[in-house]
């Protein structure tokens, strides 16, 4: 993978979606999870994708995260046309450009926080010593520098999500993709996590895209994209009362 896009500047297009469809076959029935969605997100943006349950938000996130490819339409991430890439290239793209944060944290059990956080670096080919050093730095950044050797089962929900965020930022990605990151947290901890995303967006210039139901989270973003029934029905600044 070339490094040509490393020089991506604030305001340059990072993700360009054009007429994206995603269809699933459920037995004989076709489920149309996304139906012709187009938008562009530029580097440094802070976007929330909102919409009712079943509207296709998670499907959208997997597509944006290069874990899935569209049935129709084109998606360009950092200049790469995703549909044209194979398994290895997609894996490298995810590793280099994207950090994921999930609702269910998805930490690897019985593995220390520092090793959990270091995981993406392993697939980037970084040696174990350097890996742990950078993982410790990332944990420091999310305020968990004192929890390096804990296993996930001994952390609170908020701490676990911080570990997950540390794992997402340890490779210094262009894009943080989060699916309901506050969904399993109470509102106070949720607000802390929200603040952390804002800081990361502001300080590191990382593009943040959050899929959420949480209106508190959505209204703090600068841009909201709303999906209903697999179609984009709104794209603009947060709407009051929505």
């Amino acid at each position, binding site marked *: 993978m070339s490094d040509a896009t490393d020089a991506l500047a604030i305001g340059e297009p990072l993700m360009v979606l054009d007429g994206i469809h995603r269809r699933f076959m459920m037995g004989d029935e076709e489920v149309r999870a996304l139906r012709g969605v187009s938008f562009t997100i530029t580097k440094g943006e802070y976007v929330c994708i909102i919409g009712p349950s079943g509207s296709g938000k998670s499907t959208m996130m997997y597509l944006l995260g290069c874990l899935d490819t569209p049935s129709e339409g084109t998606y360009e991430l950092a200049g790469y046309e995703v549909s044209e890439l194979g398994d290895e290239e997609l894996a490298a793209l995810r590793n280099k450009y994207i950090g994921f944060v999930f609702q269910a944290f*998805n930490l690897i059990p019985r593995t220390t926080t520092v090793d959990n956080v270091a995981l993406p670096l392993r697939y980037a080919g970084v040696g174990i010593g350097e890996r742990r050093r950078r993982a410790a730095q990332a944990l420091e950044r999310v305020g968990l520098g004192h929890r390096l050797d804990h296993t996930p089962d001994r952390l609170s929900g908020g701490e676990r999500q911080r570990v997950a965020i540390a794992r997402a930022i340890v490779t210094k990605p262009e894009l943080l993709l989060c699916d309901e990151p506050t969904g399993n947290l109470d509102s106070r901890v949720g607000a802390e996590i929200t603040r952390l995303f804002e800081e990361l967006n502001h300080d590191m210039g990382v593009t943040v895209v959050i899929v959420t139901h949480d209106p508190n989270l959505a209204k703090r973003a600068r841009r909201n994209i709303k999906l209903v029934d697999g179609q984009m029905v709104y794209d603009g600044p947060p709407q009051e009362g929505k």
Partner: protein
Amino acid sequence: MFEHVLSAFLALKANKIRAALTMLGVVIGVLAVTLLVGVGDGARIYLDEQISGLGTNLMTIVPGRRETRGFGPPAGNIARPLVMEDIQALERQGSLLRGISPMVMGGGAVRFKGRTRDTMILGVGPAFSDLRNMHVDRGSFVREEDVDSRRRVCVLGRTIVKELFGDENPLGQTVRLADGRFRVVGLMEERGTSLGFDLNDLVFIPVTAAMDLFNQDHLTQILTAARSKEDAPAASEEVEQILARRRNGERTFTIQSQDDLLKTFGALTGAMTLMLLAIASISLVVGGIGIMNIMLVSVRERTREIGVRRAVGATKSDILWQFLLESVVISSTGGGIGLALGASIVLALKRFAPSVPVALSPWIAAVAFGSSFVVGVLSGVVPARRAAELDPVEALRYE
């Protein structure tokens, strides 16, 4: 690659109990391999030692023609028995032989002062002692002139001395052998048992006296030996020619060399070891199936983990290698433990029960490691492929 091995070890460390249980099958399998092969090898080495202990480069000539190697009762129809003239011919014409002893064997009772013991009576020549490495402790062995003059003298084995004489000095005493009276001229040194046969429970008499005693004019067999290992084939050839010449070219006798005997027993114990190995590998297969099962369960349980790894940059082949190596590491570790256990048991047996013939050959280690490695690969392939082929999105959505 190192990374994969490392993370395989980390994964095992993270789940010690399961790893231990998974290993158990292979531990038992390799333990069985080590022990059973140890027993097989032990038997081979024991037989080797026993046969080599009989003497060096020995040849036994028995009457009758046999094509097969090995030993067993001589064939029934003895057209031309072995006789003393054969011994003389061999002595005159043989140039590669180290010694020649005629032999007549029979059973009979030895009596002394009302005490009796049934034993084996061997009629031999003086060369027997050196050929078979059985020497007298006191007195003398059967001598040339004893044979020539059919003298009724005998040499007693240790067991006979103990049973019949107790503390009395047997030398010079007269014992009854079957229905003859024999003077004791020598006492054999203490010997162990060979192939289950007590070498101390023997009476030696001149071969001519034995022919008189058993009322026969032919020999049971002839014992001789090649001068050296290199000479052995030529010596056998020489014996064959000398004896055949005396029989108008007919080969109505069979020469069995010690080497043949070693080969026969070697083939026998080799087959036994292989069979034991086959039995042991069944338990190894069972162990492998166990690993495969648990790896399949593990792949299912760790579906989300697999999804996460894919999300953060693992390729399909990263996942494949991860699970394959986990399986190999589990299996090889189990193999190592099984080998260590088996080796300890074998060594303990050797030390505390030296009469049990077991052996620990280096190739067992190679077999144990090799087979547990192969078992690991074979039982890891299916689970690893299943893991690698998981769709990342479905893996992440998996509840």
